[in-house]
C-alpha cells in the first residue's frame, strides 16, 4: 500500500469503525453509555484539552515582535500609509484588532494564498512555464465550510434550549428560504457537504497535496462528512423521534440526563461521531481555532522600530568597548598614526 492509501485508509477505517461501534452499541442497548456518558466525557475532554493547550502555548515566551507584515510600517511622516498598510502592518492596538478580525472572520491570509505551478506554455511546447498565481478556491472552500458549519451548529441549539431563542428560529427560516423539497432543504447543509467534499477532493487529487497529507488530515474531514451525512439522512430520509431527541439533548444541557426510548440508531451514530469530534478537537489540527488568536505572526503590533523588546533569557554579555580597546593600544595607535580619542598625557 502506498503512502496515500495507507493514510487515507487509516482515517476512513477509523470513521467507519466509529460508525460500527455506535451501531453495535445501540443494538446492545448501551443507549445510556452513548447518550449520556460519552457526550459528557467528550465535552469534558474538549474544554479541558483546549484550556490545557492554550495555557501551554501561553507559557512560551515571545520576546520579539515577529508579525508577518505585508504593508508599509509606520515611519517618517511623509511616507504615505493607506488603510491597507495599517491593517497589514498594524502600529496600534486598534489596527491590530482590525487585522485579527479580518483574519478570524474573513480568513484574510488564506485569501492571499498563491499557488506555484508548472504549466504548459505556447512559446516552449517542450518545456513548462513556472506560474505563481492567486489561488482563491481554497479560501472559498474554507470560508464556505466554516460558515456553513457555524450555521449548522447554531441551528442545533434548538435541541439544547427551551424555549428556542428567536435568532435560532430566524436562522432556520433564512436557511430554508429556498423552500425546496419537503422537508425544506437547509442551504447550510448542502454547502457544508460540498465544501467538505472539495477540501477532501483537493487533498486527494492534487499530487503535491496528497504527498503531504496524513491520516490526521483526512480523519477530521471524513469525520465531519460522516456527521453531515448522518444528519442529512436523519432529516430527510430515515426519520427519528425528534421530540425524544430533544428530551435527551435538553437533559444533557440541563445536567438532568434522561434517555427516552424510541430514538433510532442513526441518531446515536450521528451523536457519537459528534462526540468523537469534540473529544478529538484538542489533540488535533482543529486547534487552529484557538491557535489563530495566539499566533505571534498575527497578533502582535509591529512596533519593533520604536519599542525595545528585551529577550528574557539574554545572558549577561561582557562588552569590550572601544574606549577599553583604545586604552589598551593607545601607544601603538599613535605610533602608527591612527586617530585616537584621548591623547597620551
Amino acid at each position, binding site marked *: 500500500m502506498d503512502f496515500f492509501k495507507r493514510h487515507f485508509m487509516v482515517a476512513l477505517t477509523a470513521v467507519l469503525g466509529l460508525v460500527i461501534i455506535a451501531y453495535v452499541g445501540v443494538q446492545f442497548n448501551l443507549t445510556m453509555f452513548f447518550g449520556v456518558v460519552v457526550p459528557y466525557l467528550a465535552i469534558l475532554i474538549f474544554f479541558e484539552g483546549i484550556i490545557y493547550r492554550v495555557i501551554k502555548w501561553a507559557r512560551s515566551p515571545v520576546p520579539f515582535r515577529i508579525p508577518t507584515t505585508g504593508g508599509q510600517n509606520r515611519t517618517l511622516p511623509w511616507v504615505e500609509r493607506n488603510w491597507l498598510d495599517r491593517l497589514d502592518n498594524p502600529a496600534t492596538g486598534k489596527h491590530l484588532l482590525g487585522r485579527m478580525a479580518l483574519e478570524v472572520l474573513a480568513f484574510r491570509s488564506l485569501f492571499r494564498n498563491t499557488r506555484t505551478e508548472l504549466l504548459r506554455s505556447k512559446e516552449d511546447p517542450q518545456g513548462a512555464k513556472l506560474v505563481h498565481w492567486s489561488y482563491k478556491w481554497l479560501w472559498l472552500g474554507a470560508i464556505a465550510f466554516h460558515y456553513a458549519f457555524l450555521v449548522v451548529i447554531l441551528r442545533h441549539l434548538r435541541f439544547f434550549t427551551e*424555549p428556542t431563542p428567536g435568532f435560532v428560529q430566524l436562522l432556520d427560516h433564512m436557511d430554508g428560504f429556498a423552500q425546496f423539497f419537503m422537508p425544506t432543504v437547509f442551504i447550510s447543509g448542502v454547502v457544508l457537504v460540498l465544501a467538505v467534499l472539495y477540501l477532501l477532493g483537493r487533498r486527494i487529487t492534487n499530487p503535491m497535496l496528497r504527498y503531504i497529507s496524513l491520516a490526521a488530515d483526512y480523519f477530521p474531514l471524513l469525520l465531519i462528512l460522516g456527521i453531515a451525512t448522518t444528519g442529512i439522512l436523519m432529516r430527510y430520509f430515515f426519520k427519528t423521534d425528534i421530540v425524544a431527541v430533544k428530551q435527551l439533548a435538553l437533559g444533557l444541557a440541563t*445536567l438532568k440526563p434522561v434517555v427516552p426510548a424510541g430514538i433510532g440508531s442513526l441518531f446515536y451514530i450521528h451523536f457519537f461521531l459528534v462526540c468523537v469530534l469534540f473529544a478529538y478537537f484538542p489533540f488535533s489540527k482543529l486547534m487552529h481555532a484557538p491557535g489563530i488568536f495566539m499566533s505571534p505572526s498575527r497578533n502582535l503590533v509591529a512596533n519593533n522600530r520604536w519599542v525595545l523588546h528585551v529577550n528574557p*533569557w539574554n545572558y549577561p554579555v561582557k562588552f569590550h568597548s572601544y574606549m577599553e580597546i583604545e586604552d589598551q593600544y593607545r601607544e601603538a595607535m599613535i605610533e602608527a598614526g591612527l586617530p585616537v580619542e584621548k591623547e597620551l598625557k
Partner: protein
Amino acid sequence: MTGDGNYKNEFGVFAEKPKVRKKIYDRNKVFAGLAIFLVLVTLPLWKNLGKAVPAPKPSLDTPAIQKLAAKEKKCVEPTAWIRVNHMQMLVDWREEVVRNGPRDYTASDGRKFGASLSNTCMDCHSNKSQFCDQCHNYVAVAPTCWGCHLDKEKKQVAKAEGK
C-alpha cells in the same frame, strides 16, 4: 554552548545559564480570551441549567376521540410510527392527492382512510393548539401546513367570539 549547560560568549567568558521564569505570558489577555470562549459557548444553556424541562404532552382530549370506543382509539398507523413519520406521511398524501387525485389511504393494518389533513387527522385532533403545536413548538419547527389548511379550532373560536 558548552556541555555543562553554561553559555560561552565570543570572549570566552562563561555566563550562568539564563533562568527564564516559567509563567503564563499575557496572563490577563489569555484568561480573558478563555473566559469569553467559555461564556459564549455555554451562554444558551444557562437558563435551564439544573431544571428538569418537562416533555410536551399533546392532548388527546377532544370530543371526537372521547366518542371512540376504547378499542378504536388508535391513529391511522401505530403511534410510535406516526410520532416519527407523520410529516412524511402528510407530504406523501399531498403528493398523491395533488398529482394523482385519489384520496384513498390504506393503512398498514388494512383500514382505509381518506388522505386529508383537515378531514381525517383534524377530525379527531381538532385541538391544534393542544395537540400539534405542543411538540412543534417544543422542537421549534414551523410546518407550512397552515398556510393553506384551515385551522378549525381558530375558526370556531372566531365564530364564538363573533357571536
